[in-house]
């Protein structure tokens, strides 16, 4: 079985995904990724010429089906507090997170 995703590439993906994994998780997930890629690689065998357009959706959104764009009308939302109440840490209505370190050099 072809192993497309090496441990190094896998580590890179984990970094991109903003995850951190235990060794056991990594081993399982990398194995599954490679199995799935074997399935996905079946796509490569399909003859596709450039005339076949990619479909963003299955159905075609003709002008008859498509909803009109939104009119520029203000509808105030009354429950902003309920949104803010979901935040793990809030200070004076600001959502609080740890700092983002960056080097400030001359």
């Amino acid at each position, binding site marked *: 079985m072809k192993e497309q995703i090496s441990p190094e590439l896998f580590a890179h993906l984990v970094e*991109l995904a*903003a995850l951190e994994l235990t060794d056991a998780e990594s081993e399982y997930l990398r194995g599954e990724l490679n199995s799935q890629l074997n399935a996905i690689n079946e796509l490569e065998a399909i003859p596709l010429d450039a005339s076949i357009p990619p479909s*963003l*959706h299955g159905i075609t*959104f003709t*002008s008859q089906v*498509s909803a*009109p*764009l*939104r*009119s*520029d*009308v*203000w*509808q*105030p*939302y009354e429950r*902003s507090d309920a*949104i*803010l109440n979901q935040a793990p840490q809030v*200070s*004076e*209505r*600001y*959502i*609080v*997170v*740890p*700092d*983002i370190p*960056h*080097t*400030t*050099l*001359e």
Partner: protein
Amino acid sequence: MTDYEAVIGLETHIQLNTLTKIFCACKADSWNAAPNTNICPVCSGLPGVLPVLNEKAVEKAMLLAAAMHAQIQSLSFFDRKNYFYPDLPKGYQISMYEAPLATGGYLDLPLPQNEARRVRIAKLHLEEDAGKTKNAGGKRLIDFNRCGVPLVEMVTSPDLRSAEEAAQYLTRLRQLLRWLGVSEADMEKGHLRCDANVSIRPRGAAYLNPKTEIKNVNSIDAVREAVQKEIERQAREMEAGHTIESWTLEWDEDSGKLKKMRSKETEADYRYFHEPDLLPLHISEEWKKSILTALPELPLERRQRFVTQYGLPEYDADILTAERSLSDYYEQTVKAYGGDPKKVSNWLMNDVLRMLNEKGMTADQLRLLPAHLAEIIRLIDEGVINNATGKSLLEKVQASGETPAAIVAREGLAKVSDDAAIRSICQEVIAENPAEVENYRNGKATLMGWFVGQVMRKMRGKADPNLARAILEELLAQ
């Protein structure tokens, strides 16, 4: 030292002045709102929400694209630009990537000596703004109020050649945005934001050196200053034999210094793909036509026309076209007046502009209408009132909204040109001032002005001063 030229491209983000945000019905403007009050499930990225495109945002972007001479595309797509940042609640920004709203375009920037710099537009698309974060003692505070404000991202090709040109470009862009009515374009309020890409090369060279990107410059003066400092820094580095690295720099307004933010090792992979929650954006010819009928004559075109059509000096034309309603006002006055356009220009530049500045108004907000101003100038031309009366009428019309003629009639401001009335006053003045008469007759001709003044005073300014002088000369010669 080598003679360097700067190569500058500007990346601007323009907040469109729609009433609501681009994908939800929250107000677009959160100025002075407390943090996280102008939000809803959509713009705060709650699970399960979907964007719905604001028609007005598209129309304003279309106007801007047309004004930049860009080609509006009949089919464009919104894409997801995926990255993690706490001011981006969905973890992706809805933007446009491979099929933007418009392609091409340029702005011809007037330079001194009637030259122009063609600044090409490399990118013009619609997207949503992110929220704001600020530092507070080792923590970041996040406010989503700004999330979802409609933005046009417009990036120039590296066509600007000096810090001054960069500043000029922004000045012209700001003028255009206000002219079109698509953005308030206030840099201090972040309506118009600018990052500058700066590199230098020996003058005449065709290649590009590595560039640095200056972020967070929020006034036109700051752009001029920051870019100038960066050009000088790069020249010093090159002279010292160093290479320029692709840094991201931050402009610190307070210290007037550039600071390095982080080195750009690799381009981030944003994994763009078409936003499945939005439909492809179709812009029909019909829609485009209906929007572009609202496209006015552009400021630089009008400026040129004022020079050729009205014979105005460039200086006048520039000032009169700085702002659209002022230039409209000017043209309407010229038309209503029918006389010398330069005379109208003088009135606007000297008196009307002062009035606008004092009142903090734009020309279209004045009660003193172009027809009123034309009438005042005409009344002076016809000798009905004198110049000083004309100037005082400006404020009176503005205050009352009455026509100048009505005010002149009611307040009896017309010049008295009745020979007999002036003659009798002149005789009075001569009789009351024997000493001055003596002196005048002995050759002190400069006293004539004093005599005229006395007559004018007695007649509370309504006398025709030329007529008064003629009568005085006649009487004193006897």
